[in-house]
């Protein structure tokens, strides 16, 4: 299964978060929002030129800036 950063997913693609490539601080910031390994997410959209990525987790939507999104690794379901 290919594992790619959130920034490289295509809008509409779903996958499972496998890792947060960052220190304790970043994980502590993302985890309480439900962004943690094992969580299923769908990428909704992203703004071009290193803009933020929007994902949907469960029933809510979260926008993540490029610098953080690139550190979120996702295992993508192949179609």
């Amino acid at each position, binding site marked *: 299964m290919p594992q790619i950063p959130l920034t490289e997913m295509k*809008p509409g693609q779903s996958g499972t978060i496998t890792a947060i*490539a*960052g*220190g304790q601080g970043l994980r*502590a*910031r*993302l*985890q*309480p*929002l*439900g*962004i*943690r390994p094992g969580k299923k997410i769908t990428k*909704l*959209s*992203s*703004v*071009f*030129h*290193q*803009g*933020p990525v*929007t994902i949907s*987790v*469960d*029933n*809510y*939507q*979260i*926008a*993540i*800036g*490029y*610098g*953080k*999104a*690139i*550190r979120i690794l996702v295992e993508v379901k192949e179609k």
Partner: protein
Amino acid sequence: MRKIVLVGNPNVGKSVIFSQLTGARVMISNYPGTTVEFTRGELKTKAETFEILDSPGTYSLTPTCRAEEVTAELVDQADIIVNIVNATNLERNLFLTTQLLERGIPMVIALNMFDEAAQKGIKINPEKLEELLGVPVVPTIAISGEGVKDIVRSIASARKVERNPSSDAERWSEVGSLVGKVQVVSHRHRTWIEVLQDASLRPLTGIPLAALVLYLTFKIVIGAGEFIHDVLFNRIVFGMLYGPLMNKLSALLGEGFWHDVLIGQLVEGEICFEESMGMLTTGVFVSFGLVLPFLVTFYLLLGILEDSGYLPRLAVMADRLMHRIGLHGYAIVPMILGLGCNVPAALAARNLESKRERFIACTIMAITVPCMAQTALIFGLVGRYGGAYLAVIFATLFLIWAVLGMVTDRFMPGYTPSMVLEIPPYRIPHLSSQLKKLAMRLNHFFCHAVPYIFGGIFFINILYTAGIIDFLAALFEPVVKGLLGLPGEAVTTLLIGFLRKDVAVAMLEPLNLTPGQFVVGTIVLATYFPCAATFSILVRELGVKDMLVSAALMIVTSLTAGTVLNLLLDRLLPPLHLAAVFVLLALLLIIAAGGTSDRRELRDYESYLLKGNRTQKAGLD
């Protein structure tokens, strides 16, 4: 008195429940980060009177910004916790709940937005949840008040549970199994509002939408504000009713001190509401004739933007732009609030993660975002010379915004981390809550701004009478005249500007300036220093040391901008051309330069990866 603290994730309706419980009026909006300070209230039940505290929203008890620090401190003081949970995102909300339960404080859970969850096909069994968690669980629909009485009733039976501290992983697995037992989700079709929700987040539809929303907002504020000011106030109230009354009073008072203070100086034997500088003439005119019409229309539209849930989407669309000046998308919120009043804007910066970005956001906001009171005066007074001069003012502010942002981002160490922002669903704003919010904001204007307007005008008259103005004018003439090309007396506007910027702009009027000089004066006034109310908040939020740095930036910026404008405007270029040059220059800078934070953040990631590889290799050996 026992303390009840309301705790929950951002934007779950804590403030709505707080106002239902206490009757107190608090700001309520549909975006995360509306509440940044705690609000105190009282809850009277038959048995006991409680002190009740509304806290800023947080996702966990380990704070990640200043607003969340406030909440962590409040939880420590709580005798009873009311944990507000968003029923539409049970899993994520219960993570905080497990952290709270471990504190061993008696607790009640309000399962809010129960109706919205049902609409989304989410069915939760509150009794079962209560049984599993061991504390009372009450379903509520805060906005209509449903279930609020049940919260009050269950406070008496608030219980604490014995729990051992667990790791985050254990918490998530517990939450996961809880949700599996109490919640059933059935699939629903997407509603039109959800389609619009997604469209406003996609760049191809979202960016034009953002541009349209901002354009319409400003168009309506300016159009409606000018209409009310011009037709209703200028012609009818001041022209036909209040004006003649003041003329009578003027004749009655005769010459002397009280005439000067109340009516002010006559211009060609007549009262001039812009120039006379009396408390009852210019004071009343500035407060009600000029500022109020713009303030009402701006706050009406801001209220709609806030409650619809559009602001976080605007933050997403603005993220790239804000990154160029060392901030991220969410910093657009303090910038927009600042267009109303800089005080709540400086407070809203508490939602930003790092000290660095709070400094940049507060400094840039205080320098380049004029509050609505100031803007109203600029439109009212500079607008008479034509739109081109207005364009120069706002183009200059935009250029300063871009340059200052890039410079601070470049020279401050570290970087601004990218944003993480929950995007709430769109909701249709309620008329009643809109009116309540407008009333709160206008009340603030009448209680905190209008007295300063009158005080400022009274102060000017004292200064004139005591001859202090002539003294100061002579003292500062080299700077004011030499660099800025303004008459020495203009220095007093800076003195008054510390009290109220709107009055200070009005004070430029009797100086008989050319349109170009008026523009220079306005820019210097807008940028040189925040008003006293904003200043006191900034000192508190940034600390004395950072505020000194910020103040130095303000003064340097202001003198530079004033001097440059003095040299260029009308001497070298006509206003419209100069405005165009400034805007182009700013855009060019934004596109070509800046983004230091971006580069540093990515470099940080690269070095993290390198370090990771090295440890992996070490592991292999």
